[in-house]
């Protein structure tokens, strides 16, 4: 079956079997391997993509269901060389270790900030509760998404403190 999907703003067509899962369409037909396959049973969230802006698990959806719709994968977060605020914050706040869950975590974070520009820690923890990380203990992921919120709002504390100017010595 021939389908057309807009992936990261680019219209792509593919001829796929109906049983092909969306994650395989992205990885194998369209060559976008940033979307990972983890549990393959809709438990872990490694395969998260945004379907018309909403996070879904691409291992639990058929590619043909995405026909005519718009998808964002991790490859679509940055604009050229400029990282998405969530990506920049994951880098600065050490929001990843092995990186396997990271595409899903960042997409969920980016979608959350579209709906809720200044989420509380609880809001973030609920939003990422369908995504499993086995490295970080989640602390720095939560910190990163909140730091991205502050950066977007322009209220960020500098991530690296400027060295304080020495006190003038007065005799």
């Amino acid at each position, binding site marked *: 079956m021939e389908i057309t999907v807009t992936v990261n703003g680019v219209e792509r067509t593919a001829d796929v*079997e109906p049983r092909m899962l969306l994650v395989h369409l992205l990885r194998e037909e369209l060559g976008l391997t940033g979307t990972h396959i983890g549990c393959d049973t*809709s*438990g872990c969230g490694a395969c998260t993509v945004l379907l018309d802006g909403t*996070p879904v698990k691409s291992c639990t959806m058929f590619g*043909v*269901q995405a026909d005519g719709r718009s998808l964002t994968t991790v490859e679509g977060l940055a604009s050229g060389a400029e990282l998405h605020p969530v990506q920049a914050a994951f880098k600065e706040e050490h929001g990843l270790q092995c990186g396997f869950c990271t595409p899903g975590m960042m997409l969920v974070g980016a979608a959350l900030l579209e709906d809720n520009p200044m989420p509380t820690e609880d809001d973030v923890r*609920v939003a990422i*509760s*369908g995504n499993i990380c086995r490295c970080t203990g989640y602390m720095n992921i939560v910190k990163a998404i909140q730091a991205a919120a502050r950066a977007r709002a322009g209220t960020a504390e500098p991530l690296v403190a400027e060295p304080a100017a020495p006190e003038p010595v007065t005799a």
Partner: protein
Amino acid sequence: MLPSRFEYHRAGTLDEALSLLGTYGDDAKVLAGGQSLIPMMKLRFAYPEHLVDVNRVPGLDDLEERDGVLRIGALVRHATLASSELIRSRYPTIATAAPQIADPLVRNMGTIGGSIAHADPAGDLASVMLSLGASVVLRSASGSREMPIREFLVDTFTTAVEPDEMLTEILVPAAELRSGGTYLKLERKVGDWATVGVAVSLTLRNGSIGRAGIALTGVDLTNVQATEAESALAGAEPTDEAFADAGRLAAAAAHPVSDVRGSAEYKRNVIEVYVRRGLAHARDTPSAA
């Protein structure tokens, strides 16, 4: 994991979907949110030859209160139930259950019709709807019928839907003045099946209990209504003692099994506590309606 091969049909209208179901009958399954069906197909527990995708059928996701009935289209997603102002202000049992279903990503896709028609006794919404005395609308190319959800749920993964029929709507009696409710769920972690779930819906009339609805998740072959506990409460004073008795009756009526989530004895105890706690909460926080 790949499911076995199937033919994919995207229905543009409800009539088209029903006509496809009429043609393929038992060889077809309805694809809505897919959050239970697709995993089952990947595990080859299900291998339908035809999938009828209803995700783009207009009107199937309507959610409105009309003529004393809350009408929930089969395609209404859990995330929509969780964020709906109508549900939050007037249907606390649904409003508290929706954000506890699976995880946020699954809730973005999963639908109420799919959850109820899947008839997994660990599903949350069927208990909620039992407690509210809801009905389902089943449509086929040749007509439509309405049935209390209690009759619709026949057995584990088995409902009264005929092969050419589709569950299109859930009908809930509109919330009365001074009604309350809640859904309490014990789970080991987000996304796990409920160890125990308890749905409670309570209506108060002149200081007494009008109608009490109590239904249980994950402790029997279907979602089960605690009818003895409900009858004991109807017309009674809403006292802590009456609620404690109802908790004991509900626990006695369940058939939990010992498994990795806990012993049968433990689950019975959770039912007793949750029914008592849920009823007290419903009494103390009635909606203004």
